[in-house]
């Protein structure tokens, strides 16, 4: 458990000279679950990648506590901030335990000798993601939901206080989406792990996040507790979407019910 905040200060990001995000400030509060939502191409993934130093900053800086993330040795950053990007590849034939073991990389020497400590951490990561029974299976044999759990186990094996995830629920059916978000909540509650993720599904973000960041066109439209943030007006401004916001009968969090052209008033 860490009480250091990951912070973006005047951050600008872009691709080949095209600015996607211009001078953005954001705080990822420690020990909380932050969800970043917004329409396609609003820059939410780019922002997350910038926070994790997977995308170069054109201006501004990202800090972790007092430290400038871009000046930190990559290895040290990897011991403090874990990141599960969208573009992860499981090599053919790699087994679950082996893949999760690779999460130990930032803690190991050049040749990556496994210590008994490493084994214990890997086992704990498998246990806590419910993938221990799959340890000997090949990753490509697994279902989408299982595979995503395995990737999360790898990030857990990295033992970072902060975990960033780029659309971890993509390609999962609704049950597996819930499972995964439950798992992340459990990690957050029991270990105090800071979780920040880009999510597509507004209502799941609203239910699971302590802190909701709504983006549009590279800017933050609103941020804060979902209760406060997720209003009809914000949904309209961010997504250009007519919607009613009602109360989720299960969690009590705001539930966005879109209108569309053929239904409702």
């Amino acid at each position, binding site marked *: 458990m860490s009480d250091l905040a990951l912070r973006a200060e005047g951050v600008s990001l872009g691709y080949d000279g095209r600015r996607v995000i211009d001078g953005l400030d954001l705080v990822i509060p420690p020990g909380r679950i932050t969800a970043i939502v917004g329409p396609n191409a609003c820059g939410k993934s780019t922002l997350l990648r910038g926070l994790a130093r997977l995308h170069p900053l054109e201006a501004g800086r990202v800090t972790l506590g007092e430290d400038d993330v871009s000046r930190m040795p990559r290895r040290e950053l990897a011991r403090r901030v874990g990141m599960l990007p969208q573009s992860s590849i499981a*090599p053919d034939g790699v087994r679950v335990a082996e893949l999760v073991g690779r999460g130990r990389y930032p803690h190991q020497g050049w040749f990556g000798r496994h210590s008994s400590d490493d084994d214990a951490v890997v086992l704990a990561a498998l246990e806590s993601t419910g993938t221990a029974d799959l340890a000997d299976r090949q990753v490509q044999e697994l279902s989408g939901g299982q595979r995503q759990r395995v990737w999360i186990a790898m990030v857990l094996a990295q033992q970072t206080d902060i975990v960033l995830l780029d659309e971890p629920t993509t390609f999962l059916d609704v049950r597996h989406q819930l499972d995964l978000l439950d798992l992340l909540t459990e990690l957050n509650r029991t270990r105090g792990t800071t979780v920040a993720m880009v999510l597509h599904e507004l209502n799941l973000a609203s239910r699971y996040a302590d802190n909701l960041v709504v983006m549009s066109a590279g800017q933050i439209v609103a941020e804060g507790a979902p209760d406060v943030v997720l209003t009809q007006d914000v949904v309209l401004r961010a997504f250009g979407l007519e919607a009613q916001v009602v109360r989720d009968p299960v969690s009590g969090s705001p539930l966005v019910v879109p209108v569309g052209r053929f239904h409702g008033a």
Partner: protein
Amino acid sequence: MLTSPRETSGEVTRPRPDLVRQRARRRTLALLTALACLLVIILASLALGVRDILPTEVWNALTAPVTGNQDHRVVLEQRLPRTGVGLAAGAALGLAGTLVQGVTRNPIADPGLLGLNAGASLAVVCAFWLLGITAPAGYVWFAFLGAAAAAALVFSIGAGQPVRLALVGATVTALITPLITLVLLRDPTAFNLYRFWAVGSLTGRGLDTIAALWPFVAVGAVLAGALAHRLNMLALGDDVARALGQRVGTTRTLAGVAVVLLAGTATALAGPIALVGLAVPHAARRLVGTDYRWITALAAMLGPVMLLGADVIGRLVLPHTELEAGVVAALIGAPVLVAVARGRTVAGV
């Protein structure tokens, strides 16, 4: 669910230690078998050839050579150097192929993909044509420099992006190949010399050439070993490798240097040999799985097993004459690749 490992020794066996041990045993066995094969092939390479020499005479030649003894001369001046060339070039090709496939995550990548063979060929042809150099000891350096120059060009343009790297490599090869043809069409002497170099052969290189070039292979091999674990992370994608704390650019650059050293030397020593660099990593992967530390170690042994093995077979198949190692390696390599491709675990790059 979030419990420590101690508390959950319930009904299900957690990661099966017996299976893990079994796999580790299989890997060790594969490595030891490869080593044994290599030793046998080294002995065969010294003992077998067009000229029948008794094993005892081979031993005498190595331990107490008699000047003027024709058998001893053949062993020391022909078989010993070509064994050395086969070892160095084979290991270099196996390692270079592994590195190239690992760095580009491209299962059909081999050092030739980076334009190395084309660069070496052009330089050798120019040495024949412009400078009239015909001795291996002279033109190996041109081959080496040509390979290095081509690879440097390809790496500097295609830096970082596997697909771009492959495209640039193919382009450079496509650009250089007609230039070679152009020279060869104009100069029949160069053409004759080139034919024998380009087919890929271990013969005609003296111990002095090996002595001059082996340090490049040694440095390349050490680098390959040191990079092996980094390739494991790179296999998960650039982003994951970075997120795990790897400086991906550094890995690619170091791998590029190692590939130039290894494949450049191999091409200089034995000519542009196809399929060894491509087939060996696949065979190794098939035998020991996806961990590049094991793949690299095994590839360093399977490379010379394949190349030197091809050379020995080439000495024996035709009566009174030899088939070049490059030809035999291609004939062996193709079925190996097909077998791997038909198997369960293709190209776990």
